[in-house]
């Protein structure tokens, strides 16, 4: 057990830090819309050209072939440099679709898509959830009729983040009409410009439109776009999900730590109703300090999970604990700042830059629901980590 970085890791960090110092975009990312997507593409293009894309992807697929630890170091340096966050419109391509294609794609699919994902040329979105299939993904009903050349898709997907900016979608449909649950599903690459695809934005409580409902009216998707086998989409989808919650939270950890420090600074300036500084209230001081300890634990959990995966060769069953920890810490910090800020906290017009704490507070529900609700994460933990008997 040790916390020392090897010379190689230290050199990698130094290179990353030096490069970021001179290459982080001078202007902030636009808050939303096409401008945000274009910003993400341009930043990913720059990373790709300078050899910082796909750090832990295998070399044969255009990645750097480096370790999970170096991937973590990269995220840490991104956060430290206040560089664009890696969870942006390129996220689904880089974190879901790309790794799934590497695991299950045909040579043609890999050759076409992987370089476009790495370079930011193609943005991807996810097409798993439906109006009646969220946490219970296996109850999805979007239909795919297989004919000689195509899979013809009809149905509705929901909560699709950034669908309006995406070029492709990882689309999970039911191709066996009589099938139940996780049988009879197929994982498809859907070109978002296909005829019959209609995207309708959903306005959220953050007053933004980052998620969408996507309607499919007899959309023809070539059979060459099937990833894995027809009818075996569940196993392909699981391959995708297993990439989702590994080390990717380390950037959030550093940000959370910095945010706790900023909240402490805030508490030293803001006076509460009784005229005393917020920091001089024991309850507020204790909650701030406790959250600082929690953010330290998140970093330790990330490093421990990498070490365990190194030894066993597979990602552990603890990614659900990681998501619970990160999202609950995020939410508790937002609530605490609400207690400190008072009336100012109740001002909001949807602009993240001018109301960052309120925006974060509202985002905390997206965080605890998206990618598997906290309740489902507890179920997964009970099943897989604790081995409790199942009722589902």
């Amino acid at each position, binding site marked *: 057990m040790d916390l020392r970085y090897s010379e190689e890791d230290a050199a990698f960090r130094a290179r990353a830090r030096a490069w970021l110092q001179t290459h982080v975009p001078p202007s902030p990312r636009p808050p939303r819309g096409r401008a945000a997507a274009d910003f993400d593409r341009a930043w990913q293009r720059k990373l790709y050209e300078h050899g910082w894309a796909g750090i832990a992807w295998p070399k044969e697929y255009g990645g750097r072939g480096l370790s999970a630890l170096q991937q973590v170091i990269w995220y840490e340096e991104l956060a430290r440099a206040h560089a664009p966050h890696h969870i942006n419109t390129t996220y689904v391509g880089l974190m879901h679709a790309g790794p799934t294609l590497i695991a299950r794609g045909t040579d043609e699919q890999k050759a076409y898509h992987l370089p476009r994902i790495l370079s930011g040329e193609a943005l991807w979105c996810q097409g798993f959830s439906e109006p009646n299939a969220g946490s219970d993904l296996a109850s999805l009903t979007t239909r795919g009729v297989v004919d000689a050349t195509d899979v013809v898709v009809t149905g509705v997907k929901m909560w699709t983040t950034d669908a309006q900016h995406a070029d492709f979608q990882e689309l999970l449909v039911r191709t066996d009409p009589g099938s139940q649950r996780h049988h009879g599903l197929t994982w498809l690459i859907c070109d978002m410009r296909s005829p019959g695809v209609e995207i309708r934005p959903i306005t959220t409580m953050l007053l933004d439109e980052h998620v969408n409902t996507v309607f499919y009216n007899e959309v023809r998707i070539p059979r060459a776009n099937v990833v894995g086998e027809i009818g075996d989409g569940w196993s392909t989808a699981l391959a995708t999900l297993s990439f989702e919650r590994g080390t990717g939270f380390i950037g959030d950890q550093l940000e959370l730590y910095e945010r706790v420090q900023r909240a402490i600074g805030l508490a030293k300036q803001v006076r509460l109703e009784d005229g005393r500084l917020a920091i001089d209230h024991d309850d507020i001081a204790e909650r701030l300090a406790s959250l600082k300890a929690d953010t330290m634990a998140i970093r330790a959990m990330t490093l421990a999970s990498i070490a365990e995966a190194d030894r066993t060769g597979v990602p552990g069953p603890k990614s659900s604990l990681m998501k619970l920890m990160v999202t609950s810490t995020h939410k508790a910090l937002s609530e605490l700042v609400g207690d400190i800020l008072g009336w100012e906290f109740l001002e909001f017009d949807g602009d993240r830059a001018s109301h960052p704490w309120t925006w974060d507070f509202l985002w905390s529900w997206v965080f605890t629901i998206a990618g598997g609700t906290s309740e489902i994460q507890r179920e997964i933990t009970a099943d897989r980590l*604790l081995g409790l008997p199942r009722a589902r």
Partner: protein
Amino acid sequence: MFLAPDGSEIEIADTAARFLSRAIPLDRLHGRGASPALSADLRADFAAMGWFGLVLPEADGGSGLSAVEYALFYREVGRHCGPVDILAQGLAAMVSDDGRLRGALLAGEQWVALAVEDGPGLRLLGSHDAALALHVERDAARLLDVSVVETAARPSLDPATGMRAIVCGTPRTVAVSSDGDVWNLGQLGVAAMQVGVAESALALIVEYAKVRETFGRKIGTYQAVRHACADMALRGEAARCQLWSAAAALKECRSDAHVHLDAAKHLANRAAVVNADVDIQLHGGIGVTEEHHAHLLLKHGLLLARLFGSKRTLLARLLHAELEV
């Protein structure tokens, strides 16, 4: 960088687990006649295994191991609600610069209690027969001769820990150390024991939830039970991983090791006490009986939570602490 037990560390932890489940099983603490004291024979067994001198240099009669093996050992001690005498004995050997006394401490021939401040005086935790007591502060540790003072036994909530108050006289100082590592290792050891308490609580309820039935179903199928267990697992995981950070930081003499230690102790306190609480509740009626282990974990966790930094002092320090980056 490898933040998990590895290689010989795992072997030492496994050896400790086997030894302790024979030497100090939780069963020892049940019944009105149960004694918190370690018998002379048991002390000799601990000494023979070298557990009192884990981190002491080999030249001083110790095993010369690091804070990491130390933390792994005390985590196992915590699972069995091991008495704080074990910790006091090992720390005292670090304080004593008298070779003969150190030898007697490592051999388990001289017994040491842990002295803690209680108002203007001291309270002694551990075996009633201990003639020595160790009082540890952040920057100094004093080994005291308590055979010269009059003490009165106090009824201890925690069956694993004897308790005495000094009622008359002043202990004589036998040895003093201004090495901050005595505090650091004490804090690490107690944090590790709390992680062990938290893990034992989770293990008890998970085992029970797999067999106990109500309304015709195993209670482990109810989300009210499953989700509470998942939260226990999360508290334990956060505390355990931060314990690894603290142990490695101390081993590597990092300048922010004390911040990692404070965070580890705070997270471990919370994991131990809350997990022990939830463990009793989820067991239902059997959870409040004397014959069940559940209350032992709660009572021991509450006692350990006051040692080497209680919640208030830990959080006050963490609020202003800076991490090395």
